């Protein structure tokens, strides 16, 4: 089963990390990634650029409102993710707890849906289409 490990950090933690030697961070993350590759569980992942470059589309009002990053009242910023293919929820938790992250950071661990999650809607037109999209590689 596949899980997404979603890295979320407070703006303060991200600021604080800027004073840490960047090479140290690269090395720690590299070693972590390598350990998951060597265990045969890491199948995807990426980091995100500074939240200041991003923007938010807010659906609170009738017309969606676009706001520049870093997102006003949001306390934790999503700044990267890993996808692991593991044998159990507990194994996902074990890998997550090994991430080289410090205070102010959290990993949200979420199981990625598969076809079985939509079994009751297998005949739905868009569920069918999604299979085709995946087949054509449109969804990566």
């Amino acid at each position, binding site marked *: 089963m596949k899980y997404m490990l979603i890295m979320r950090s407070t703006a303060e933690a991200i600021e604080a990390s800027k004073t840490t030697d960047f090479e140290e961070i690269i090395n720690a993350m590299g070693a972590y990634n390598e350990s998951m*590759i*060597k*265990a*045969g*569980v890491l*199948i*995807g992942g990426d980091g995100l650029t500074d939240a200041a470059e991003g923007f938010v589309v807010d659906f609170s009002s009738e017309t969606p409102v676009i706001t520049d990053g870093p997102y006003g009242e949001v306390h934790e910023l999503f700044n990267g993710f890993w996808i692991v*293919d*593991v*044998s*159990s*929820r*507990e*194994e996902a*938790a*074990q*890998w997550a*707890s090994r991430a080289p992250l410090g205070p102010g950071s959290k990993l949200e661990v979420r199981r990625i849906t598969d*076809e079985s999650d939509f079994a009751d809607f297998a005949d739905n037109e868009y569920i069918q289409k999604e*299979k*085709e999209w*995946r*087949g*054509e*590689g449109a969804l*990566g």
Partner: protein
Amino acid sequence: MARRGRAGLSAMNADAATPGVDGAGIRRTVDAVWRIESARIVATLAKVTGDFAWAEDLAQEAVVDALAQWPSTGVPQNPGAWLTAVAKRKAIDGWRRRERLDDRYRALAHGLDEHGGAADSGEAIDDDVLRLVFTACHPVLGREAQVALTLRVVGGLSTEEIARLFLVPVATVQQRIVRAKKTLAAAKTPFETPGPSEWSARLGSVLGVVYLIFTEGYSATSGDRWMRAELALEALRLGRVVAGLVPREAEAHALVALMEFQASRFGARTRSDGSPVLLADQDRSRWDRAQIGRGVAALARADELGRGRGPYALQAAIAECHAVAPSVDETDWERIVLLYEALGRLAPNPVVDLNRAVAVSMAVGPASGLRIVDEIAASGALRGSHLLPSVRGELLARLGRLAEARSELTTAAGLAANARERQVLRDKAAALG
């Protein structure tokens, strides 16, 4: 120290809404740790004790301790190091009991003092894990023993999980593992990687074990579909581990590629009632594209090593031709014919020839394919197998020789061991009128 560990534990317990399942929660956590750490723990212990079988026992005893202690102490921050340290202490106790206060004991005791017991982080290096892989797949062991031992110590599966995946009683798996350890001890197999003269044969044995586990899951003739897919995915994971340990070995990457391509078709290989869907009839939109992408990357890594293609690489390249083709008609059959020819030269095998015949029939026409099939038949190879008459029947049908085709397919149905396969062949024969 256990800050993160305790947080993890309470998160697991939070799941356990009903009282009395804390034990099960810890069991699952310990299983998960064992999954991740088993190879390194056993490799470390085998290195310090020089005794693989004992190392495995010590590690299992440490797991029992964890099950007893972690519910009250919380999961240690570095659970692998905890297990390793506990197992090492058990080794020292064992030596004391045996009054074998020899150099090995002194070295180990010294190491533990120096690193301060539980803080000792274990540290089997990749070479030790590789020694472990070679030991588990040692040629003195039978295939079943190699498979059970590899899944348990390298893959970190519990005996119960292995039994469930192979549809055999737990006692059977236990017995296989106990016997395997006895065999290794009796043969006095050193905990070493093989030397240059043996290397390639021994690596072949390791890759063979991994692929056997995969095919057991992939082409299972019995059992729950989902569990069998799970077994194949375990093999894929093992394959990635092995490729990571021997990154310069093209065939290790090629085996990963082959398994990725084949596993990408899992979703499309069976109907909801469990009956098989032939490659030509599969809904290709259900092939897992991300997995195919990983297969392409793994095969490229194998090719980049520049040693030419071995049997796994050639099979992976054939699987890649299918995986990237939009349909049967748009498949590069000429290329597949060439790849089968190369495979046949490298490892002559009548099944490969038969596959080549099918590819030739697609690339050139059924008459050319039939000529190859008839050559195989004349050689006497594959006598008694349903494969030969079933392919021959298909080709005859395409040539319009329906009566002969029907007769061949009926013969094939009579020879097929698998009930579902038998039905498919009967249906085909009946469809010819």
